[in-house]
């Protein structure tokens, strides 16, 4: 058990390190939130407003970056993420609350589907090395190397243009309000089709390729021959013997991508005007919205770490040899 305790200790340390880095990194960017805000308005905000904005954001007093840092840590311990600048004075937690569910639902679901489909295909492709299945990989890599926005925009042009079947932007119809009504859910689902499909298409090949490569390696092992000797059905050999052993790298990849879900997929959200976290992060970055950035980073950090811890545990469960004994 001390093993697990030590792991948790390391994870706490990592979390602290990441939080610290994420505090200082944004502040290393030249400029400040007020400048960016004025800048991005390109003349729509008067330069006279600059002073009032400094006052508004509480940046008129000189506070050393370290005292800010400790203040931030204190805030974190109290569970307070601060107020966003871009959406001043909306609390960061509220901004996150608005955007996270969208991202998690769409990206989470597609990540899982893409992992399952990709891994499954990878198993087949690896198992039938040299056959027709080898074509699957170049085709999917072709698709996944296509820049996401490119595919997304083409998809919009083809399927969402005049007379297209799908909406081109947003998470739901402007007319409906988020609630558990059929109207809302159906519109949300309809709006997620194009983004989901494009994400799937572009993200699957990674899973396929890593799974295929591992399958090819594993299928040379003696226990596969033995499994054949046992007269097990081809499917069982493929799944329970070859794939089961080949799965490990993909599992850790999957855990990581689960952790990164909350980071959203920036381009998807931009291209499809999807109300998710990725776009929020992008905006925060442009606006030097430190609290929002930190909030998003924090969520990413925590979820990546948790996912990683899970991956570690899954690994122990999946591959008994990784257990450190003695």
């Amino acid at each position, binding site marked *: 058990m001390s093993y697990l305790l030590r792991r948790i200790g390391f994870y706490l340390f*990592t979390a602290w390190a990441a939080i610290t880095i994420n505090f200082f*990194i944004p502040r290393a960017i030249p400029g400040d939130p007020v400048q960016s805000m004025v800048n991005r308005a390109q003349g729509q905000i008067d330069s006279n407003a600059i002073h009032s904005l400094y006052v508004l954001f509480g940046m008129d007093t000189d506070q050393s970056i370290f005292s800010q840092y400790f203040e931030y840590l204190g805030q974190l311990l109290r569970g307070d993420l601060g107020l966003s600048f871009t959406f001043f004075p909306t609390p960061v937690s509220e901004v996150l609350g608005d955007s996270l569910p969208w991202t998690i639902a769409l990206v989470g679901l597609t990540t899982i589907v893409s992992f399952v489909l990709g891994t499954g295909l990878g198993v087949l492709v690896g198992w039938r090395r040299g056959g027709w299945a080898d074509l699957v990989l170049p085709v999917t*890599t072709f698709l996944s190397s296509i820049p996401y926005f490119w595919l997304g925009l083409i998809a919009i042009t083809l399927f969402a243009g005049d007379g297209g079947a799908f909406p081109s932007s947003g998470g739901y119809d402007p007319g409906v309000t988020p609630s558990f009504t059929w109207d809302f859910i159906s519109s949300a689902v309809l709006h997620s089709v194009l983004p989901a499909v494009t994400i799937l298409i572009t993200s699957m090949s990674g899973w396929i390729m890593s799974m295929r*490569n591992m399958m*090819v390696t594993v299928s040379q092992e003696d226990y596969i021959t033995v499994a054949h000797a046992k007269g097990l059905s081809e499917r069982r050999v493929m799944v329970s013997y070859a794939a089961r052993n080949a799965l490990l790298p993909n599992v850790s990849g999957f855990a990581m991508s689960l952790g990164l879900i909350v980071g959203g997929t920036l381009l998807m959200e931009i291209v499809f005007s999807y109300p998710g976290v990725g776009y929020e992060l992008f905006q925060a970055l442009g606006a030097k919205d430190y609290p929002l950035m930190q909030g998003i980073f924090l969520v990413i950090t925590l979820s990546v770490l948790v996912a990683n811890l899970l*991956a570690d545990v899954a690994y122990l469960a999946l591959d008994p*040899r*990784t257990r450190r004994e003695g």
Partner: protein
Amino acid sequence: MAVPAADVAAAVPVEEPAGKRRQAFRFLATGKAITGLVIIGVLVVLSVIGEWIAPYDPSARSSDLLEGPSGRHWLGTTHLGQDILSQLLVGTRSVMVVGLVSGLVATILAVVIGVTSGYLSGLGGEGLSAVSNVFLVIPALPLIVIIASIVPEVSTLGIALIIGCTSWAWGARVLRAQTLSLRRRDYVEAARATGESTWRIIGVEILPNLTAVIASSFVGTVIFAVLSEITLAFIGVSGGAEWNWGTILFWAQSQQALDQGAWWWFVPAGLAIAILGTSLSLVNFGIDEFVNPRLRTGGRMRAGFTPVVRGGDR
């Protein structure tokens, strides 16, 4: 008498490695790998000579505003009358540099850190794995933005290095996990017992057995790096003065080329990127045979069902 014997001993194996090498490079003979290598070769050549064979200066304006493909402009022009084919050709270099350099940097870092942290037990291993966790959560995009804004002019190589240095953690985690399962294998223990140094065990005993993972993660990182560069250019975070496929797409998108019907502006660059990715995945097919001796002779045979070639002419 002993002299000739030693001579023979020395003479015979000299040609052996040559033969071995020939065998090792047999993977090139597979059609897919060849196709991939040829495409990559062409792209590399283009990235060197693109500047010279481009028919126009990619930035030069002309009076042919937003024209479709024609004899004069094979891939049409932009809203400023710039020749898109030239932009594509000149832009190849930056994409290739970023893709390959950051792919290499990230893969090397991932391999070194991932495998080491998996192999070493105790504080060293845990520490390295904590480092990769931290890097995993450090968001690459903001970091690139920051570095781009601190350093006055980021070159393509700079971008490549930044992407490379921020995108290795994923591969490192995967490799670490796989290493954990390899580190107690008998042959690793045997190498240890033979007295191999830790570095050699990691580098020569464990690493080659991870090639499958490394290959896919290399291909993945290259694609990721190229896409990152293009994304950065596309969202207008880093421009650099140099042309790359992303800049083309940035202009196309900011001028809403697709809505304007100017597909020639938008489509080629995207396809070019996809072709680069595909060629890498084709090369990937050759890689497993290259490293896994058991696959070299296998051809299309599959385990479990030895073929019967009765009376085959031998």
